[in-house]
């Protein structure tokens, strides 16, 4: 339930505060200050610009591949802010740009992975874009193999539980993942040991081209949680505040030893699966256009404005600032060197290359 708290917007931090705003009383969701809400909005805007830049760079022939999270931003940012950042681990999948950017990845780091540069901190240019590995920010290593990481996340949670460390693991995946055997094995394992895990399905109704009705015979992924002995909860994943509340409750359950929760965030996929896919081969332009009405960014913008937490001038300023960051990061990353052939052989084993 949202708590009514007094929020002096004039006292919010310089970066995100509005000019000459009145002291007002607003109803804010529990755990979220006005400043945090604006910061979350800022992460969504930044993500959108990074994702747009990724596709643009691909179409310019500057990067070989791009995948975006457009339509998922609200769910991902909400989940990131529901966790204890710096303590809790996220085990993401490849459509989690907003989650990463909200969990400490910077625009420069993001652009470096798009360009696959040598100093790309995630993989040194060894992996596809958005395949993060950032131990210092508690972001696990991402695979392209669907649902494999769900088992890793459960193993990590088992380790935390064994060491009695109050760490929660958030594991994200699409609805297609839930068809994989590994997903079932991981869910089952987590249920048996009542592990401190939040499973979040970002259900965008398509696994590349295959719609949900050909993926499963149930209406909701959340329904599957019953088979594992823990709750499944559905939320509108295009609604930041609704998703935040649901994930926050799941995180609290996990941290207090009450076991896992399966959160199903209903989202949509605005773009094709990746830059190598054309969604118009399996859905119509009208369908794609209709999805724009669900865009989480204008929706959150309106929500913030309605409550006097943002105004047009601040929005404009935030967007300009984010655009400048992305532009700077793009130019900077593009100028960085790619890996050399000598970099090919490192890190096969801890001791180095095999031969």
């Amino acid at each position, binding site marked *: 339930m949202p708590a009514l708290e007094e929020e002096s917007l004039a006292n919010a931090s310089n970066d995100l505060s509005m000019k000459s705003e009145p002291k007002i009383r607003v109803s804010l969701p529990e755990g979220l200050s006005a400043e945090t809400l604006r910061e979350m909005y800022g992460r969504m805007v930044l993500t959108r610009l990074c994702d747009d830049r990724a596709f643009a760079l691909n179409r310019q022939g500057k990067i070989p591949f791009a995948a975006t999270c457009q339509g998922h931003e609200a769910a991902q940012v909400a989940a990131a802010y529901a966790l204890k950042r710096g303590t809790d681990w996220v085990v993401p999948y490849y459509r989690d740009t907003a989650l990463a950017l909200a969990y400490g990845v910077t625009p420069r780091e993001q652009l470096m992975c798009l360009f696959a540069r040598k100093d790309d901190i995630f993989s040194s240019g060894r992996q596809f874009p958005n395949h993060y590995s950032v131990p210092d920010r508690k972001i696990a290593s991402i695979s392209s193999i669907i649902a494999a990481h769900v*088992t890793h996340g459960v*193993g*990590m949670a088992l380790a935390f539980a064994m060491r009695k460390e109050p760490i929660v693991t958030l594991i994200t995946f699409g609805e297609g993942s839930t068809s994989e055997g*590994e997903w079932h094995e991981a869910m089952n394992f987590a249920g048996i040991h009542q592990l401190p895990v939040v499973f979040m399905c970002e259900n965008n109704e398509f696994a590349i081209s295959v719609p949900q009705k050909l993926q499963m015979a149930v209406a909701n992924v959340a329904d599957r949680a019953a088979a594992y002995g823990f709750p499944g909860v559905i939320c509108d994943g295009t609604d930041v505040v609704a998703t935040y509340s649901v994930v926050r409750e799941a995180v609290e359950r996990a941290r207090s030893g009450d076991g896992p929760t399966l959160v199903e965030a209903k989202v949509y996929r605005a773009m094709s699966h990746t830059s190598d896919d054309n969604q118009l081969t399996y859905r119509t332009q009208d369908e794609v256009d209709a999805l724009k009405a669900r865009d989480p960014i204008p929706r959150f913008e309106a929500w913030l404005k309605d409550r006097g937490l943002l105004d047009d001038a601040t929005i404009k300023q935030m967007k300009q600032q984010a655009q400048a960051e992305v532009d700077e990061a793009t130019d900077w990353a593009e100028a960085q060197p790619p890996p050399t052939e000598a970099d090919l052989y490192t890190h096969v084993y*801890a001791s180095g290359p095999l031969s």
Partner: protein
Amino acid sequence: MATAQVAKQTQSTMVQALQSALVEEMDRDKDVVILGEDIGVRGGVFLITEGLVDKFGTDRVIDTPLAEAGIIGAAVGMALYGLRPVAEIQFIDFIFPGFDLLVTEAAKIRYRSAGQFGVPMVIRSPYGGGVRGGSYHSQSPEAYFVATPGLKVVVPSNPYDAKGLLIASIRDPDPVVFMEPKKIYRSVKSDVPAGTYEVPLGKAAVVREGKHASLITFGAMVPVALEAADIMNKDGVEVEVVDLRTLQPYDTEAILQTVGKTGHVVLLQEAPQIGGYSGEIAAFIAENAIEYLEGPIVRVGGWDTAFPYALEKAYMPNPNRVVRALKKTLNF
């Protein structure tokens, strides 16, 4: 306590040696945990982990659901977070549901994260035929794992090596597939010292010296090789038997040394021949030591079939087949 029991032993089976390695490592390092099907109260189907749940508790000796991908995937996650999981796959024939987690995840995480994450885990699993295990309790699938950079593959042939190699594997920073020759679990005893020692990974052992031909093998085929060497010795032919012990990374120096010494090579494995591990060793020798060869490199292995139940004896390489191979290269 268990260490004290080991101290009294002079002669141990491989089962006892493996158990003492696990007990000593779990005593030494609380991050070492074991997981697998039936490894708890049951002690594993081969009793390698018998009694460990009483000693270390269910937190560190985890009976898992019947789900190999789940076992290996959970072990990867535990290792990512700094534990040292030792997962048992009940028979290596059952590893394939978890193959993905091993070859695309465990093996590649260090490389794909540019060294930021490592996966220090061991997958222990009994392998091999000759125990009336039928098609799915008999296979020897080392070639699949050896073909995956990032994995190490270890196969002991005797109790002493089994203990030292398992300890070295648990301490290794990278994922190790530890294949245990189930035929040798209880059929051979050797001196196994009490206390901790490592047999280094990547080092072969010359288990019998000879100057006329080199018989290069590993695991459950080592006793077969030694029998073949005995037979040859009756005709005055001295066969050197090299036990590779680690298949990946393998001991290139030891191979070059024995080939340089004898000039005749027979490679012996249990698995089907085509695409098998011996092919790698043959290629290595051909590329690096052809000037020493005085005859063809001859392979002896299982037949290129699935593993048969009733015809197990006809399938498994035996000393006579090895002798014929030795004669083929020696009489070239």
